[in-house]
């Protein structure tokens, strides 16, 4: 019987990969965003003692309006260029997909009444929300992934509709994992508050210019992190719509809601590996051990 062994909140600003200077990324940096990069170092150390088979990623940068889609091609190799920050992120990726698990998840979501689709076009480019989070969590890329798209329900209808859909999707995900023989780490790939600067410093890694976009965002981020640390999962879940409204947060895409539901809404105290800002947005690297 399969199981979820951990859940991660894993922000995906391309700046973090840029500042790491891996060989896969074409641009190079002097330094930058160390709080967050060191947070990811601590996360990787923490995950080193967990035995798992697959990373299951919910990404806000694969946005679909008609239901939830799942990658279902076993191997992708191409170049990912960030559409907003192409000068920072041009990453040659080579990754494997756990197609068997993806199909099980898609079937479970469909059975639960959600609109779903398998993505079987081999020319498809994997989104950078998947790649950045995947690289920062497991730069070796030796574990297969499953990526599911984020549905635009919050924009089309309301945050409440999104919460309901993610509740259904989360429960379906948990069922599919249970029925597989896989040990899985869930990843909600997104930041917290998400108001960007509209002008970038030169060089982009000039840390004297990096700070939260405004104090209101920071207060909201800290509130959410407090709830994560305290293991107040229901309160955290219930606050997501207000938090999103107040901070233009990427929780709008549903990743955190989906993951909390998939983990059974248990009151687990999360381990916050660190918090930092990237071009004004708030980002936390957080781990829940299930």
């Amino acid at each position, binding site marked *: 019987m399969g199981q979820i062994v951990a859940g991660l909140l894993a922000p995906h600003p391309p700046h973090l990969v840029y500042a790491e200077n891996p060989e896969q990324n074409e641009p190079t940096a002097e330094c930058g965003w160390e709080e967050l990069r060191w947070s990811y170092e601590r996360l990787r150390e923490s995950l080193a003692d967990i035995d798992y088979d697959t990373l299951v990623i919910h990404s806000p940068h*694969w*946005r*679909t*309006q*008609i*239901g939830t*889609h799942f990658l279902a091609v076993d191997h992708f190799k*191409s*170049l*990912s*260029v960030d*559409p*907003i*920050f*192409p*000068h920072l992120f*041009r990453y040659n990726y080579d990754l494997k997909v756990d197609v068997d698990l993806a199909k099980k998840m898609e079937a479970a979501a469909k059975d639960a009444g959600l*609109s779903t*689709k398998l*993505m*079987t*076009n081999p*020319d*498809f*480019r994997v*989104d950078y929300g998947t790649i950045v989070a995947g690289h920062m969590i497991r730069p070796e890329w030796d574990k297969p992934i499953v990526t599911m*798209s984020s549905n*635009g329900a*919050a*924009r*089309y209808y309301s945050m409440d509709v999104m919460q309901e859909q993610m509740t259904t999707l989360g429960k379906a995900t948990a069922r599919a994992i249970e029925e597989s023989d896989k040990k899985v780490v869930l990843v909600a790939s997104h930041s917290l508050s998400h*108001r*960007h*600067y*509209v*002008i*970038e410093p030169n060089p982009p890694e000039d840390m004297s210019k990096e700070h939260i*976009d*405004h104090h*209101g965002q920071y207060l909201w981020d800290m509130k959410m992190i407090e709830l994560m640390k305290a293991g107040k999962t229901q309160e955290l879940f219930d606050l997501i719509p207000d938090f999103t409204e107040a901070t*233009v947060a990427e929780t*709008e895409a549903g990743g955190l809601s989906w993951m909390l539901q998939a983990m059974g809404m248990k009151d687990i105290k999360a381990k916050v590996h660190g918090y930092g800002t990237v071009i004004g947005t708030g980002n936390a690297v957080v781990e829940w051990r299930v």
Partner: protein
Amino acid sequence: MSENKTEILKKTFDEEMEDRPEVLKSYVVPGLPHLLLCPEKKPEWQKLNDAFKKAAAEIEELNPDVILVYSSYWFSVLGHQFQTKENIKWNLVDEEWHELGSIPYEISTDVEFAKENIKAAEKRGLHARPVDYEGFPVDTGSVVALKLLNPKNKFKSSIVSSNVYSDRAETVVLAKSSLDTLKKQNKKAVVILVSSLSNRYLDEPIDYKKPERIHSKKDEEWNLKFLEFLSQGRLEDAAQLSRQFHREARVTKKVVSFKPYWWLSTMMGETNELKGNILEYQAVHGTGAALISFTPNKGKGGGLEFDEDGTEVYKGNRNVL
């Protein structure tokens, strides 16, 4: 008041129009891949594809120096981005409609124009950046529009992004910077706006047996109201209504406004002195897909007073948060 500003204010509407660079014609087009990859699968898609063919023939006849494209499908955050890669080649798969197939494409950019446009935008207070990267993800809307309107890649293009935070002032000034560039380089342009009208999809897979329909009656009514203005060439009137249209018939979160019509109207002179022609209007998976052309048509009373005047310079964020 500076001398320059005084000069601008002294000009009458007619003098301003006389002084404009040559925009031969403009088009509003939908950017969904159905219309390129498999128009034969639904009669509504085929009608739109046929309309694209008509527009492509018109453009061929007009023989522009450059095709300017503003795509509501290409979002930017750091100001506006301009394609500056001379030959853009890739094989695109749409993130929503991947099952319809891949789109290999090749686009030739007017690099000289785009680089000058960046300078002109900066001069008017905007933040603007070049995009010249192998593998940059050109948006589906731009690719579909250019593949259908410029099928042999005969004409060079210049594609600009749509900033998610920008509102009217920034968008109007962006268009004016492109007009500055056309004038400076003495180029004749055809202008393309890639955008749907109502943009709400049906929340279900494609049913090839069912006829297409607009998502809701309300979306349909607003589309028809907007099209009534556009068919009469009242582009500036439609632009002034675009906030209302955005609230009524668009998915309103994240993108702050229905800005494409501000851009297009400014490109065409912030006027109603136009001939509007609806080449086709159909539903595509719930959205309003119209192909419309506008041609300058002097003498229809373009110098009317509008609620909002054009902006010349963008002064940036006011840090009100």
